[in-house]
């Protein structure tokens, strides 16, 4: 074997461009197969558009169109009425990976890293060789700019191939993006149709017009005229900072002393707390941040964990609110019972978050399958990786049997039910960059379970009521069945005539019905149900090989059957 020198090896060692990295690892960002890629590209566009509108306090109006160009080639067009983007920023925002405004601040938003939309542009470019076309206008009297953009994958720099001013008179302001890409359009629960619909459900303040490749146009009109409360930016909470980040912050801070660093860079740290942290870290408050060694930083990091610091403020999060959540569910599902809950804010690793849950039970839902789970994070539907998500895990570990659903141990319950869970946070912890599954932080799992339990208790009382009414109905029919027999027997025993026999029957009805009172009725009473909306995404796709709702293998017998066995056992015992 020929040995190689370090020098030789060094020749092969060089920078890896982030764009090159993506090219090889696009699955990490959700571009692994044509079907999912189409969805991910649209998702990134919609996320950005909604974020931009909300940040500028504009009620969003989105127009999304998917056009099929060839068997596997699509053009997606996404247009919003946002504030627009100044011309200088356009290339970087759309054609440079890891460029954005959201990574460095802590505020509730859909996007986080600044990868999404440029990844979509890159994906289109890689699969079709075509540049993305971006049009943006920032005000009524300003010109609209149209750019053709590509990403130079070796340098991760935008490559502008065409740049012109155009007339875009129908819009005062807004942004439009067109990307050609390879994809595959399917129906079903993981389809673009479903994604758009769910987005409309959890963003009732947005109007979304969507045209699918079959040229069907869906209009989801705005259901709420008010924007969600403005997402406030907060500084990092000391508990949430990692050592590496801390070292970096110490390097770049303008603060002159450690105490000043702590009070200015973090939330919830006043002079008193800062001094306490210094004491717990065995560091002097007037140490210069610039002079920090790695060891000192580690001391500080440990000191922070030892200090009691009040939880971060939580007014920086705007939940959907349980009323709107329930309203959305009513549109989608024609059920007999709805309930929802919004938990008080909680904190994981220094990041505040709020969990909301809602469920719909009975009605037109199928009863013998596992429940349908709808997951959302910061108002974005999560359609993939259900099995890896903390929401799914929390549902599986909640005891649904006591709430009236069937459930084998540690699996999703079954019954005519849909469970919806939404997490809002200044920083949603996803398990990967494709942002489809929540990470399993104990605090988050605990909050989700509490929200589910709150809904579950309400569900249980409804299921019980339903059962009582059913039994009552049974008893009524029972009465009707046997009254004639009582009358008949009396007729023969004491020789009543027909008139008196009839009277006995009438009186018996009065006696028995009187004691029972009015019969309640449970039925679907849901004027908000939108049949057309509910249909979207329902059609199952035949080659749904990637669909993650794994058909669960039911090993346990259904409860009813088990009870019957028990009864026969008991009967046998009494016979002995």
């Amino acid at each position: 074997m020929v040995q190689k020198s370090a020098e030789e090896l060094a020749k092969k060692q060089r920078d890896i461009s982030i764009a090159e990295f993506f090219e090889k690892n696009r699955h990490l960002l959700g571009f692994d197969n044509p079907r999912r890629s189409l969805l991910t590209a649209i998702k990134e566009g919609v996320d950005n558009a909604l974020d931009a509108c909300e940040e500028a306090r504009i009620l969003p109006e989105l127009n999304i169109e998917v056009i099929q160009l060839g068997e596997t080639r699509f053009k997606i067009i996404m247009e919003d009425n946002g504030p627009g983007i100044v011309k200088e920023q356009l290339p970087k925002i759309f054609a440079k990976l890891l460029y954005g405004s959201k990574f460095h601040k802590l505020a509730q938003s859909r996007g986080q890293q600044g990868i999404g939309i440029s990844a979509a542009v890159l994906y289109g470019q890689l699969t079709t060789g075509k540049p993305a076309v971006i049009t943006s206008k920032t005000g009524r009297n300003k010109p609209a700019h149209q750019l053709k953009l590509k990403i130079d994958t070796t340098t991760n720099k935008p490559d502008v191939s065409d740049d012109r001013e155009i007339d875009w008179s129908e819009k005062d302001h807004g942004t439009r993006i067109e990307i050609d890409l390879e994809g595959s359009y399917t129906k079903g629960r993981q389809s673009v149709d479903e994604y758009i619909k769910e987005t409309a459900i959890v963003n009732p303040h947005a109007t979304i017009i969507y045209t699918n490749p079959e040229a069907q146009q869906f209009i989801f009109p705005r259901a709420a005229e008010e924007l969600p409360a403005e997402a406030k930016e907060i500084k990092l909470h000391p508990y949430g900072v990692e050592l590496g980040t801390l070292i970096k912050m110490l390097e770049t801070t303008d603060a002159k002393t450690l105490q000043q660093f702590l009070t200015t860079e973090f939330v919830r740290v006043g002079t008193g707390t800062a001094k306490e942290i210094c004491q717990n870290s065995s560091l002097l408050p007037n140490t210069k941040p610039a002079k920090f060694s790695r060891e000192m930083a580690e001391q500080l990091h440990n000191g922070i964990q030892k200090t009691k610091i009040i939880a971060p403020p939580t007014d920086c999060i705007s939940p959907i609110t349980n009323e709107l959540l329930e309203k959305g569910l009513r549109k989608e599902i024609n059920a007999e019972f709805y309930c929802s809950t919004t938990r008080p804010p909680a904190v994981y690793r220094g990041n505040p978050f709020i969990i909301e849950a809602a469920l719909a039970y009975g009605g037109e839902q199928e009863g013998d399958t596992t429940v349908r789970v709808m997951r959302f994070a910061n108002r974005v539907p999560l359609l993939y990786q259900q099995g890896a998500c903390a929401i799914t895990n929390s549902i599986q570990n909640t005891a649904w049997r006591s709430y009236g659903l069937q459930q084998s141990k540690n699996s999703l319950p079954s019954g005519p039910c849909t469970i919806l869970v939404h997490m809002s946070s200044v920083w949603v912890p996803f398990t990967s960059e494709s942002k489809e599954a929540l990470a399993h932080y104990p605090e988050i799992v605990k909050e989700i379970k509490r929200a589910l339990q709150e809904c579950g208790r309400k569900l249980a009382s409804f299921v019980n009521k339903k059962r009582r009414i059913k039994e009552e109905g049974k008893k009524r029919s029972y009465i009707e069945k046997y009254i004639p027999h009582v009358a008949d027997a009396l007729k023969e025993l004491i020789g009543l005539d027909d008139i008196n026999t009839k009277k006995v029957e009438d009186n018996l009805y009065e006696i028995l019905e009187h004691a029972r009172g009015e019969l309640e009725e449970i039925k679907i009473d849901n004027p908000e149900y939108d049949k057309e909306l509910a249909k979207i995404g329902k059609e199952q796709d035949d080659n749904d090989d990637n669909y993650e709702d794994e058909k669960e293998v039911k090993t346990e017998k259904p409860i009813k059957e088990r009870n019957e066995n028990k009864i026969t056992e008991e009967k046998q015992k009494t016979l002995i």
Partner: protein
Amino acid sequence: MTTKKDINVIAKITEIAKGIYGKIKLIKQPELEMPIRALSNVEYNTEDGYFKQLNNKKTRTLTASTIKTFAQTLRMMNLSKKLIETDDIATKREAYYVSKNWGDARFREQPESDTVMDDIEAMMGVNREQIGFIPGEKGGAVAGKLTVIDIDKETGKELRIDCTKFGAGAYSIPSSVEHLQFETNAKFVLAIETAGMFERLNKHKYWKNENCVIIAMSGVPTRATRRFMRKLSDENKLPVYVFTDGDPYGYFSIYRTLKVGSGNAAHINEFFCVPKAKFIGVTPQDIEDYKLPTHPLKEVDFKKIKDVLNNDPFCLHHKEWQKALKQMAKMRVRVEQQAFSAHSLNFVMEKYLPDKLKNSKTWLP
């Protein structure tokens, strides 16, 4: 032929039906009242030696959940009235089939109709035969030094049945025994739990050597079998000895019911038990004395022992039985009549029974 007693039953049925009708006319919930049929509603009358019914009643008010049974009870009362009026009878099974004409009110299983029948019987405070129903069950088998005098229904003549002349077979006790008379010079009656043991004793003409009557009960003795033995005990002054398996069922389902009656049909206990019966075996002590092969007690056996020790008035009265049951629970075993075969097939006849009959100290009350 409707007798005066029968007219009383008809009158009572009509009276109950009229009471119900009266309530319904006033738009009030009608009720049926009947004695509670359980051990909790009897006391052990030591003077007369049987379980006497107490006065606790249960009321079945007509509601949505009781209406089916209510209708069935009335239907059954009506059937009973018709049977008496036409001097007919129906077996329990037949009554069950009659109900199949009642549409939705029909019985699904015979135990359901039996329960309703027992309720009516207790409500009237009479014997089942008096309301026109007879048991479908087979009575006991009899062999030995006994002549039963029956009457031929066609001719009205006496029928003399010699119970020594059935060979390998036996005389079968009819469902109604009230009219029977006996002639015997036997010294005692031996009541045996299993048909198998009866066969062995009969085959070897055990009754000839011992000068006795043997009766197979085949489990809990039927009312007729109990009444049959009672007549032998009362009218012919024969002692009755009982021989069952050594387990809680043999002691307190078979022997106790034979001797003092049951909680379930307490209203007829007075006539349908044999207070003078004595238990000769197999006792828990016999297991040790005769070194008998055993089986472990089952969960149900322990449950029965516990239940009897706590609730059975007969057991609560007799320390000897409490001692025997506790001994059995401690030994954790039960024994079958056939276990004596381990010594030799005729050990039971040649050794065990003669020994036991001689020594009344080994018996249980």
